[in-house]
């Protein structure tokens, strides 16, 4: 009886897992003009630019590197949501939209959140260990803040 129940549950889960693959989130990289980017406009030092590329741009730019698991539901939903939120809150591909005050504030915020360990998100560094920031990385990033 128990074996039958376990079997039914496993089959049901497999059906659900298969069915949810048809619900794919919006997962695109809109065109990005390199002249509009953080690197081109704010002109950070190479060390800071390297940190940003390594640890920030997957969620905070139009140059997301979508990993294989980002195509499998339900992880795909979570990743797509993080990227959507990330781009809405700070988009390194559209730095030319910021005036001088906002540009300074955003750079300061990047430094602050890295310093407090709020960014990158823990679930991101879990799968991207190279995105974990060292003290040197944080110093390089903070050097771009006014």
């Amino acid at each position, binding site marked *: 009886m128990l074996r039958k129940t376990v079997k039914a549950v496993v089959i049901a889960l497999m059906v659900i897992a298969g069915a949810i693959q048809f619900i794919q989130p919006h997962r695109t990289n809109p*065109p990005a*003009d390199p002249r*509009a980017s953080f690197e081109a406009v704010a002109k950070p030092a190479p060390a800071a630019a390297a940190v940003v590329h390594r640890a920030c741009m997957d969620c905070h730019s139009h140059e997301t590197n979508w990993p294989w698991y980002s195509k499998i539901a339900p992880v795909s939903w979570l990743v797509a949501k993080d990227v*959507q*939120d990330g*781009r*809405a*809150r*700070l988009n390194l591909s*559209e730095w030319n*939209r*910021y*005036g*001088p*005050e*906002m540009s300074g*504030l955003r750079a*300061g*915020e990047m430094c*602050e959140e890295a310093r*407090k360990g709020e960014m990158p998100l823990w679930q991101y560094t879990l799968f991207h260990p190279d995105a974990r920031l060292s003290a040197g990385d944080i110093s390089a990033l903070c050097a771009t803040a006014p």
Partner: protein
Amino acid sequence: MRAARVFLGAVAALALGALGCGRQAPQTVDAAKLKMFAPLPDVVPAKAGAPAEAQVTLGRMLYYEPRLSKGQDVSCNTCHNLTRYGVDGEPTSEGFKKQHGNRNSPTVYNAAAHFVQFWDGRAPDVEAQAKGPVMNPVEMAMPSEKAVAAVLKSMPEYVAAFQRAFPGEKDPVTLENAAKAIGAFERGLLTPARWDKFLKGDETALTPEEKAGFNTFVAAGCQACHAGTLLGGNLYQKIGTVKPYPDTSDEGRFQVTKSDADKMTFKVPSLRNVEKTGPYFHNGKIPTLDAAIVQMAEYQLGKQLSDAEVRSIGAFLKTLTGDIPAEYIKPPELPKSTAKTPKPDLAD
């Protein structure tokens, strides 16, 4: 016996704890988040420094001057009413022969501190901006700069005021100088609010509900665009960043740059006095602040806010309502028309 004492002690502790929970805990605001904001300055200096008093005086007169319009019935103050927080409360304003433009008239208060002017940023500062409506055929509709100068030169008091404001200039009565003077006046149109007192360290300037509202505002992500001195006015953003905005009749900054990246992009408006400056958005189609909060969260952040969150953010936004500088905006007596002053012209 001992067990009974322990039991009674535990009950007492729980009761005291419950009483403590019933009391409202002091609401705190993350100081790090406050770094994204700054209080208003006393005046917004131009590139050349603080505006000269004579320019401010002249600018105040010109701001209220309807004879700068072809029909002599529209002044800056018509659409940017200084006693109504610098707006007219209409979705779009009525200009020459009751024509309407397609964008909402933004408030002129604190406008000098914006990084660019107009919804699409086509003017770099308030001095450059002030020329626009005077010459716009659906706004004040003056036919030429020469016609503007002719109106002003017909009144000796204006000629003298221009000479005082622009000493040493051979021909100071020009549209260019009129706009400079209006800009000089606008640089003092600032509305410090309770929010500024709070930023300067007065913890009591905001109620616990308003502080909680700030936390809701930040948690929702509103400060991604509405930060800095004006909580906006310092960046462009696409309307519909997360969810496409349905009204695509106005493509915003694209009309200036013709760059696809600027389609549906507008200057982010300041939230100072937002409680008083509806209806909202570039098209003026959003009638209430609550609706504006809901739509911004939906289209810009991909969030469905609860009613409680909307109320909470609204409570914070109301702390941005500042004091209107009553003395500074007092309408001056305008020079009387002379025989040489052109008459109102309502012909097309």
